[in-house]
């Protein structure tokens, strides 16, 4: 088995605790991310994907649970030096490129920020060259270095976020919808790029996205979230061929295909959480239905799923 890079143990992130509008954004999820893999994370809008990513990278203090990076707790106390080292290893590409880029800074300085903090450039010329190279890597050019974020199109801004994350040469990148703002050709470019970088540098990705065909393409394994919980986790192909949780099935049935005739006649499968009929007595948790294929289910559902698996064989 591959080496674990990140271990997420019963992570909880609640907001407005104790108030009427309390949100259990992440409500007890556990999974591991292996060195060099891409773990895809999909799920309903608002189900807690970004919050999971943000908690892992310590933008929030977790309400409960643990995140281990190379066996070390991320949320524990750290001295400044360790923190800095750690910040460099883990980078996040943010979902909302507009909100995450400082509007008053030029692209050159935005991208070089991490380079400066970590003292990665030998001199001013080296710094400039690094930024130019990064811009080229993400399909922009050096003329763009003198511009401000508002002078870019949505997709171009997203690529600035990618360049910024790559600047400090991280080991682990949390990519929160890094490609959804891009046109399909540039999506392909960026995905090819992420894969190449992965092969070259052994990078590990947590890849959050809504475009399921892209997620399938880039991920080794995929986790499906629903309302703060992980409901299914399986190798990418297995998940698509053999979705077991009804939410996953509903999700896969709703993927729009680039074929007008198909779209005119498509049917979707809706998910109603009431189908489970869970009672308080049910012990609902992640269970391994077939090797490496985990489903959030009750004892009874587990038995049914296993029966179904057996019947298939």
């Amino acid at each position, binding site marked *: 088995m591959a080496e674990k890079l990140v271990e997420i143990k019963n992570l909880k992130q609640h*907001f407005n605790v104790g108030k009427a509008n309390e949100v259990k954004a992440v409500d007890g999820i556990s999974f591991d991310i292996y060195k060099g893999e891409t773990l895809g994370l999909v799920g309903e809008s608002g*189900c807690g994907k970004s919050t999971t990513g943000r908690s892992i990278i310590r933008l929030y203090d977790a309400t409960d649970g643990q995140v281990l990076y190379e066996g070390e707790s991320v949320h524990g106390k750290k001295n400044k030096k360790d923190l800095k080292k750690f910040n460099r290893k883990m980078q996040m590409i943010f979902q909302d490129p507009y909100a995450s880029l400082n509007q008053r800074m030029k692209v050159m300085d935005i991208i070089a920020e991490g380079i400066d903090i970590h003292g990665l450039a030998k001199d001013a010329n080296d710094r400039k060259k690094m930024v130019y190279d990064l811009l080229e890597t993400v399909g922009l050019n050096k003329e763009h270095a003198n511009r401000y974020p508002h002078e870019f199109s949505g*997709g171009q801004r997203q690529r600035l976020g990618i360049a910024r994350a790559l600047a400090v040469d991280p080991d682990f990148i949390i990519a929160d919808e890094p490609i959804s703002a891009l046109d399909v050709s540039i999506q392909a470019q960026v995905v090819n790029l992420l894969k190449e970088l992965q092969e070259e540098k052994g990078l590990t990705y947590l890849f959050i996205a809504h475009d399921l065909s892209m997620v399938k393409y880039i991920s080794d394994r995929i986790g499906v979230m629903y309302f703060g919980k992980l409901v299914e986790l399986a190798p990418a192909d297995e998940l698509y061929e053999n979705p077991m949780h009804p939410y996953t099935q509903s999700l896969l049935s709703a993927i729009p295909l*680039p074929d007008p*005739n198909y779209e005119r006649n498509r049917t979707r499968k809706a998910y109603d959480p009431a189908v489970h009929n869970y009672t308080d007595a049910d012990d609902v948790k992640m269970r391994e239905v077939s090797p490496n294929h985990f489903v959030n289910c009750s004892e009874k559902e587990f038995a049914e799923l296993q029966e179904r698996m057996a019947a298939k064989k």
Partner: protein
Amino acid sequence: MEKILQVKDLELSFHTFGGEVKAIRGVNFDLYKGETLAIVGESGSGKSVTTKSIMRLLPEATSEFKNGEILFGGRDLTKLSDKEMQKIRGKDISMIFQDPMTSLNPTMPIGRQITEPILKHQKIGKDEAKKVAIDLLRLVGMPKPELRMKQYPHQFSGGQRQRIVIAIALACNPQILIADEPTTALDVTIQAQILELMKDLQKKIDTSIIFITHDLGVVANVADRVAVMYGGKIVEIGTVDEIFYNPQHPYTWGLLSSMPSMDAEDAKLYAIPGTPPDLLDPPKGDAFALRSEYAMKIDMEQPPPFFKVSDTHMAATWLLHPEAPAVEPPEMVIERMKKFPGSRYYEGSAN
């Protein structure tokens, strides 16, 4: 069919530190009442700028209309005063922006942001407006909307913010709805709900929709017609079937070839080679020529005019000139053309 909006010869530039960015270089299209026109195309090709110029939302100090007109209700929107434009914006024409955070006020609770345009454009009281707002939030699939009216944008997920923006845009039953990547931040199930919602609105009040998206699956689902943009121009426009099953422009071919299919192997994805044209100094011929294996000598010299493919379908490529040599489109595109009666690759029964 009734034309509700006409964009004619639109040319628009930005004045930047580096020079004049010729972002829109002659865009023409009509929008019919009750239709959905999808605009697809390369990132940076001018989709958002085209629609923002309809809404007159570009920075006045740095942007300049160089040519053309935008006709709505007998008036040229490029010539209206700010005050006149304000009456139209959010009421007759409303827009869902690509980055939801740019259109939400971070310091105002979202409830007030939805009720404000309702109070401004409709003759109803505060309590009533609040009810309308809660209903709208429920309509866009926000759980427990009553409890969330007093929260601020940063307390919502990316997709929830996007749905708040959609609720605001729908608040006044606009005649034209411009939706710039409205569902990109949403999962496919909620996306499907929102698309249904927009179609319902369309049926109810005959709204015309301009829908910008990169997701060709979504285009296939919502669009009646599709315009393909590249380098500040529309390079192909036609019905959704014509664009998907009988595309003519090499850029459209590249676009359709770049998507991973659900059963894609682990091979590299196809990406159109090269980089987008420099809009500070746009190429003088076909802007796509440098990246196209189909480029001919004339492509480097003269911009192609529109050639008519059918009454509803036009493409700006010299390949359609009667004297151009016949070329074979990429394999993936031929597969599509086989489904299109009227294409020379047609193999029968599309349905």
